[in-house]
């Protein structure tokens, strides 16, 4: 099964504070951890994200679209990084996350969310939706 693993933001990560000594130590540990993920054959992708002050949101209300500039308030609910893993089950995903070095200077959280699989959508896929998705896939395959 495929899971998205979210590293949640903290006050520090949102402020872009990188405690120098801790940071270099963490980068080594995290590098090793990523090597383990690759060697175990489960890591498909992963990256870190800049603080939400670099981000934007678009709010929807009927026909209205409002752009909101970061930073955003709910610090602990924001995402600071992610991985995409292929694992056997949630137990395995949890076991791998427990092995991760704390990605933040202080207390932090990592969240694991399984992907929808094709079968979950099959009954909602109308021919029209199918056609649109096909066009999308065509554009995506350009890169």
């Amino acid at each position, binding site marked *: 099964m495929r899971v998205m693993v979210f590293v949640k933001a903290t006050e520090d990560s949102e402020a872009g504070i990188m405690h120098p000594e801790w940071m270099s130590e963490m980068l080594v540990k995290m590098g*090793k951890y990523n*090597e383990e993920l*690759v*060697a*175990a*054959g*489960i890591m*498909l*992708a992963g990256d870190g994200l800049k603080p939400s002050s670099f981000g934007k949101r678009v709010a929807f209300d009927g026909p209205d679209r409002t752009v909101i500039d970061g930073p955003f308030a709910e610090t602990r609910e924001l995402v600071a990084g992610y991985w*995409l893993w*292929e694992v*056997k*089950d949630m*137990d*395995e995903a*949890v*076991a*791998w996350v*427990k092995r991760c070095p704390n990605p933040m200077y202080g207390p932090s959280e990592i969240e694991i969310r399984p992907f929808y699989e*094709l079968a979950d959508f*099959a009954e909602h896929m109308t021919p029209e939706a*199918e056609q649109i*998705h*096909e*066009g*999308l*896939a*065509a*554009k*995506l*395959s*350009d890169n």
Partner: protein
Amino acid sequence: MLASLVPLTEYAGMAESETHQAIEAVYRMERARLIAGLARMVRDVDRAEELAQEALLIALSEWPRSGVPNNPGAWLMAAAKRRAIDGMRRETMRARKHEEIAREIDGETDSTIEEIEAAMDDDLGDELLGLIFTACHPVLSADARAALTLRLVGGLTTDEIARAFLSAEPTIAQRIVRAKKMIGNAGLAFEVPRGAELAVRLPSVLEVIYLIFNEGYAATAGEDLIRPALCAEAQRVGRILAGLMPQESEVLGLLALMEIQASRLAARTGPDGRFVPLPEQHRARWDRLLIRRGLEALLRAEALGGADGPYALQAALAACHARARTADETDWRRIAALYDRLREIMPSPVVDLNRAVAHSMTYGPEAGLALVDELADAAALRNYAPLPAARGDFLFRAGRLGEARAQFEAAASLTRNETERAFLLERAGRCGS
């Protein structure tokens, strides 16, 4: 299964997140490495498997009280090593070999979990690689290699492997027992071959991974789910191998090939469970992530100078389809050129036939006909339905309908697949009478 040996009440006091399920998840992650390290130590795969299992039982009884240790792999290894030494002490050690091993291990008894952990860190997957290379040793038949790899590296049970290969369980069990015996008799050391030896041994590893993958790929809708799961298993071993041997272009070539093929898994089956051939597939159902990973792996293989490897070439062919936005946009000229090259590297009548199809798509049906005519005498293609089917297609496109009809009918009478037969007879029907 194993959890039933430990009464659930013993988990009292343990956080719910660390039940036996969590312990078994940790064990599954460590199992292959554990067996690899133990096999190298006791020089006996069977015993190594037993010891790993015993270590799990110890963990199941201790971890609920103590919690999962920070270094579970090293902990399990230490527990298994202690069991190995205890077992050997109990035995009367007449065989000199056993004495030697016992002495070797005895020397290690004092090592702390931290030391074992450090050793495992330094190992960089070498032991696991050694296990993969041993399970895929050319002294074993390809079938035996596949079964053993799934058992030791994938952690599948004998029953699961039997179901996956549509075989009877005793057949697979026997195959594994024999393979283990052969490994023992041949005195294989569970080491990773080096230098020239590596080049000789690597193909038999790649062959087995691709065999496992193709077995899963051949699975049809409605079959036991363990069969399509073989694709995921093969991809996993392929990714492990690519992680451990990032400089081997053919490892990357095979990984690229599997990722791109697997990207089409969902699109190959229609809503009615019917097989959907590539040109008719809904490309929206192709897995973009796998395609991207496949193309990246292929680029790395090519950057290492491996563009002409048999797997890299096949991956490059698969990539041509993956890059095409619609079936009409397929770069047949490039596909034809790749088949020309593949034919030199990996001569086979099936490659020749595919090459004829590619040439017909690039240079017209007459070009295809000229190439299949050269193949008419190939013994391997006698009674091979795709040959008359391809010729029928070329003739049809050349406007020679009467001849095309005869070829489609011949192909229909050769195939054992009902869907394909219906498809071929329909094409014959469209040729008029």
